[in-house]
């Protein structure tokens, strides 16, 4: 069958993108952009353009992933490549507009193409040539920061819903499953289970009713790819979910959204309404006879809700605790019915696979991990943000080439992959390919794809303590090893960071870790000890320093701070004496040569004196 260019009839691209003006301004206003101040910037842009009588379409778009450069504003003149400005402030808007309108782009962050006619253009890099972007291959988040996420027409103009239309009008559900299987798509939520297989199990399960659920309960600290994806391109996620529903035979679905991410929920809600209005959702999708509708549901904010069985319990209005699998959701899921649950990012890949074919998807990636994956780069790194790269890309490329490496004057120390229950890998793993199996073999996990970079100012024992405190607090409390075991491990780690550790603690941590990993009911417990095990494995000397030498080499664990000393730079001004809350500092010496003396037995190690000293004359003693 000859396929229309677009899935549904929409106005011309020109009118959708520009309206009746000649200028379009995209303002990155995802949660990240808003946090960086994009709100006032957006208003000011409208204001300034109005003042100048410029007819322009100012669009509230998603995030292109370059969080380090927010707020980002892209100007697109009809027929011209876009020009992107970074770090835009409300006060800076006027000047940028003034310059842009006069054909001057100097100082811009990047351009999408060269015109050869704009002033200063030669010094502005192409977006795709920026270090942050040039190693990326974008699929799931390709439209983020480009299209208006609240416009189904803009999504359709990007080829949106063609995959779905093709699936429901030309393919049997089995063929859809086959296509996704051929692509080699694996779950992007962390476990990496083959998506096609999951769909097949659900398809084959007996049931008078089936459900399709999108897991948008992104809860890892340091992971925001799902939020970015659904805030910036909600229709893509929805399209993926509808295709999944068609494949498995579901007629009702849920998107379970983390309540702390309200913009994601409202964007999805809008997308659902628009899709319904176009007959893409609801009865008789694309006239195919297939019917499906979606409810958007906010989670109650527990990390464990991301676990699929706990998630279903939450939808059912029960306490969100995981239950044993099997039975898997594919056979006995929501309200006991066969249910498919896929992560946001997994679903975001599906439309492309259906539209462009499985080969297009699987041409990048590694042997067993096909396609691309969005990683969130955070921590002690120059360029933070979300980057979509082929699976199998090395940690080094992600951290050093895309992320720009450690901050000035710092050295790379470790990278925590896979969120709080992932593993902490050291410099020796920099060439490890980021794929499911490689990470697992190193004692870590893919998880949702969070990459937290730490440098020499981070204590890995303290890092392990921090992550354990998170998983301990987020344990649902149902199974013994996770509930009590993590608590005991946390207590031991706290002790060690306070210098009260014992050598046998390491053995106890390893023993508890083994049992927790071996026996916990769900993936939370079955991965929570990873940060401890990997830091013990790769940073043993740091543990020993805390336990044996009562020393924190990174200078983080304040209980191990021996005290402060006053250097020769002291000018005897007395500020430290006044500021010290404990009266641990006295001034000595003669009138002309006064000096501060710190009584470390009284000192509370608060560090106020260090901050207060105008001459940087107080140093920590470790």
């Amino acid at each position, binding site marked *: 069958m000859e396929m229309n260019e677009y899935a549904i009839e929409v106005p011309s691209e020109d009118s959708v993108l520009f309206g009746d003006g000649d200028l379009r301004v995209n303002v990155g206003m995802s949660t990240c952009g808003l946090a960086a101040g994009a709100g006032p910037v957006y208003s000011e842009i409208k204001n300034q353009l109005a003042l100048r009588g410029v007819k322009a379409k100012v669009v509230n778009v998603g995030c292109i992933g370059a969080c380090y450069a927010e707020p980002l504003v892209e100007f697109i003149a009809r027929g011209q490549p876009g020009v992107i400005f970074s770090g835009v402030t409300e006060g800076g808007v006027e000047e940028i507009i003034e310059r842009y309108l006069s054909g001057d782009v100097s100082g811009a962050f990047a351009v999408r193409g060269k015109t050869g006619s704009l002033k200063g253009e030669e010094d502005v890099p192409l977006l795709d040539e920026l270090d942050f972007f040039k190693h990326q291959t974008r699929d799931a988040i390709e439209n983020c920061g480009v299209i208006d996420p609240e416009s189904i027409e803009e999504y359709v103009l990007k080829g949106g819903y063609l995959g779905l239309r093709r699936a429901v009008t030309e393919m049997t559900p089995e063929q859809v499953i086959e296509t996704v299987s051929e692509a080699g798509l694996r779950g992007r939520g962390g476990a990496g289970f083959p998506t096609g297989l999951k769909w097949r199990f659900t398809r084959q399960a007996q049931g008078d009713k089936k459900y399709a659920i999108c897991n948008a309960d992104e809860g890892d600290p340091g992971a925001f790819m799902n939020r970015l994806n659904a805030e910036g391109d909600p229709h893509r996620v929805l399209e993926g979910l509808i295709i999944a529903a068609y494949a498995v035979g579901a007629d009702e679905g849920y998107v379970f959204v983390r309540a702390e991410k309200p913009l994601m929920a409202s964007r999805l809600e809008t997308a659902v309404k628009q899709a319904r209005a176009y007959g893409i959702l609801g009865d008789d999708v694309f006239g195919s006879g297939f019917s499906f509708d979606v409810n958007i549901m906010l989670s109650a904010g527990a990390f*464990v809700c991301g676990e699929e069985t706990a998630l279903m319990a939450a939808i059912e209005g029960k306490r969100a605790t995981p239950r044993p699998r099997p039975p898997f959701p594919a056979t006995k899921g929501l309200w006991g019915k066969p249910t498919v649950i896929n992560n946001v990012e997994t679903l975001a890949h599906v439309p492309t696979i259906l539209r462009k074919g499985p080969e297009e998807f699987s041409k990048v990636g590694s042997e067993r991990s096909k396609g691309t994956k969005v990683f969130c780069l955070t921590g002690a790194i120059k360029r933070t943000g979300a980057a979509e790269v082929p699976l199998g890309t090395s940690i080094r490329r992600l951290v050093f080439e895309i992320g720009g490496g450690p901050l000035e004057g710092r050295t790379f120390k470790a990278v925590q992959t896979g969120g709080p229950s992932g593993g902490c890998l050291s410099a020796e793993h920099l060439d490890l390919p980021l794929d499911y199996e490689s990470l697992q073999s190193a004692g870590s996990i893919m998880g949702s794809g969070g990459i937290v970079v730490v440098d020499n100012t981070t204590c890995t024992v303290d890092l392990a303590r921090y992550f354990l405190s998170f998983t301990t607090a987020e344990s649902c409390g149902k199974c013994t090893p996770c509930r009590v075991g993590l608590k005991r491990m946390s207590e031991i780690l706290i002790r060690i960071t306070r210098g009260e550790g014992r050598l046998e603690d390491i053995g106890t941590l390893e023993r508890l870790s083994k049992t927790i990993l071996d026996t916990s009911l769900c993936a939370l417990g079955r991965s929570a000890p990873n940060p401890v095990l990997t830091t013990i494995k790769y940073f043993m000397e740091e543990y020993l320093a805390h336990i044996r030498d009562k020393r924190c080499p990174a200078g983080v664990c304040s209980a191990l701070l021996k005290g402060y000393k006053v250097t020769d730079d002291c000018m005897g001004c007395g500020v430290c004496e006044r500021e010290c809350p404990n009266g641990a500092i006295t001034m000595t010496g003669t009138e002309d040569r006064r000096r501060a003396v710190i009584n470390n037995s009284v000192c509370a190690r608060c560090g106020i004196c260090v901050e207060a000293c105008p001459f940087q004359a107080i140093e920590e003693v470790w």
Partner: protein
Amino acid sequence: MSVELTIDGRKVRGDPGQTVLEVAEANGIHIPTLCHHPLLPASGACRVCVVDIGRKDRLEASCTLPISDGMNVETGNERVREARRTVVELILSAHPADCMTCEQNGRCELQDLAYELGIEMEELTFEPKRLGRRVDDSSPAITYDPDLCILCGRCVAACNEIRNHGILNYRDRGYDTVVIAGLGEFIVDSGCVSCGECVQVCPTGALSEKPSRFKGRWWELEKKTTTCPFCGVGCTLEVYTKDGEIVKVRGAEDGVENMGSLCVKGRFGYDWVNSPERLTTPLIRRGDGFEAATWDKALSHVASKFKEIREKHGEDALAGLASAKCTNEENYLFQKFVRACLGNNNVDHCARLCHAPTVAGLVKAFGSGAMTNSILELTGSDLIFVTGSNTTENHPVIAKYMRQAVVDHGATLIVADPRKIGLVDHAEIWLRQRGGTDVALLNGLMNVILREGLQDTEFIEERCENFQEFRETVEKYTPERVEEITGVPSRDLEEAAVAIGEADRASFVFSMGITQHTTGTDNVISVANLAMLTGNVGRESTGVNPLRGQNNVQGACDLGALPNVYPGYQSVDDEQIRSKFTEAWGVDLSVEPGLTVVEMMDAAYEGRLKGLYVMGENPMLSDPDLNHVEEALGNLEFLVVQDIFMSETAELADVVLPAASFAEKDGTFTNTGRRVQRVNKLFEPVGEAKADWEIICELATRMGYPMRYESPAEVMDEMAGVTPIYGGVSYDRLGREGLQWPCTDATHPGTRFLHAERFTRGKGMFHAVEYRPPAEEPDDEYPLMLTTGRVLEHFHTGTMTRRSEVLDALRGECLVEINPGDASRLGVEDGDKVRVRSRRGLIEAKARVTEKSAPGSVFIPFHFAEAAANRLTNAALDPFSKIPEYKVCAVAVEKTRD
């Protein structure tokens, strides 16, 4: 199709869907467990039962892991043992080692597990400790020590998934997770009904029976199985005794009717057995008081007085009241004593006051008057229609199955009741009819079913008769007319009717809200009509199911403690039957049906009845219009009361005979589901008390009619010989499950549901029944409608339950339930003392202002002698069954000024 797997090197087989734990257990391979409980859904919480199936990354919990072909399971290798030890060590790290005085010591599953795994306390990395959380000692029944809780989740599952009470749940998460009652209030304020299911399943001492504290170590207790002496459910008890006292009671988990469950009475209400107020010696009246006597003297006195009255006033001047609390054997012997020894049919018992219309009505309609189906079948019903039964309070364990049907199987529950009873919370439709308008309501439902064509025509044509006459009557009861009579909105009526008509398997359940009316028999017949109309008789999970109130009211009826029938509902006026009994008992028998309870009182009042023998009944509290009863009993020449306590009736007696309680004798009870179950003697009777059957035998023998039996088993054999429905029942066959009658011969397996192929009477008989208003309705002088009944914590006249510390602490006084609207009109606030008057008497009690009572009506429980509801009730009788109208009379309520 079975699955083959290897466990510890042994090839074993199991069925698909079975768990590794189940298959291991079936093959004698022990896997330690902790959160697992056979009656609860597997949760996989504790992780003690982990096994190794060769996966590098994990062990699997055997309680939740389904078996699969070729699976290779190791249940005790080093990895598994190490994991288990660590898990138990972790549990112990948040649990005190307070075993010394812990109530669960010796039966603690955590203790046993630590021992089994060989955990040495001094080798523990983490010391056992108390977290210092508040012990909840607020409930008289249950003590909760959260520090002993190991969060296995059993109690929460029992409360929510088995009982569906929804009281226990978790608060917080992770290490801070704690089981709470309600929203975290004290148990006593949480809405907890003290069923104690949570206590029973708790593996540690976290939840324990408060009254049992320090009363005995588990290993000192002797365990015996018997049948609960309270309501008609017939729960199987496991009773733990020490030195002739009941220390703890647990529901038998293989109990065929209760499956481990009990209610607050069945679990906690036994201190009366060892009460110092128990009668321990025969007593003979001396002036205003009593004098202790020997058995010989007391029985000789009774025998000679009865003989004297018989000689002086004739046989008909004597009568006997049997007891629904006594065993089948005792009721059999009692009615035999009245018929064969006293020489008349003047025997009746309190069934007259509860289910006489059931027997009368169902015999007319179907040919036999008992629950057509079994209790457990309720869980398989698509629709349960409950009317006039406050099941959650009066038959709590049956209510459990109703809630399970709704929650687990999506059954529709329809409640028709003037009171907002507990079941209303689980009902899809609640019809709040005015008291005494049941016939109109039921006719209305049937009118709509016929109008919509939802009747089961095939069933009606093939299995029933007299449909046309019935139809003509029902057609007059349009929803509009019914709304006028009953107050039930016609839309609700129609909705309920359609649901009933469309259900595949509908069960109809009723109790005294249907029977205790002057139209009681009509009400019952109407329920039977509805069941026949919709084809819901004679199939599993359907039927007409009257819930009997007393533990053995079914048996007392079955064994002939009724004035018109011999054992097995065999008519006394049937010549052939009479000659069978004449032959069996060796005496000539009276042709005349005898007096019913209320007729006995009238006869005594009028001086026709001179001597009365009362076994285990308390008409001075249970009968209507007590002032009249008191005068009647006072008018008797000779009153003998045989009881366990000095009841209100015994106070009036000439001779009082001390009887053994259920705990002190052998016998059988027949529950509401027609199941004959064993009662086992737990210990010797107190003082000189004797089992009722022994007393009857000795008295009969002294009166010249020798009765000699070795044991109740021998009585059963005689009963079986003359009672066809019990023909195949013998103690050898009863075992732990009992037998459901009809069980006609030694090979008959018993009967789960009646009328399968044909009705007992042949064809089911439709009756055209017209609505008649109650005998007394509110008027200007007595503007409110009074209805009476029971409360959860008490039983009948309170002889037993009011002597239970737990039950009395939970509910120690009579509360007059009144609707907030009426209360405010009368200036009555919750807790105010009110005076309630009827044309027959007055009582005073505290008011409970509650929506549970319908506007214009009040409810008073009848357990409380100090505020006896039956001083108010009307003795107007149903013309067919002679049941008094306890459920409707007119009263006035006013606030007392003191």
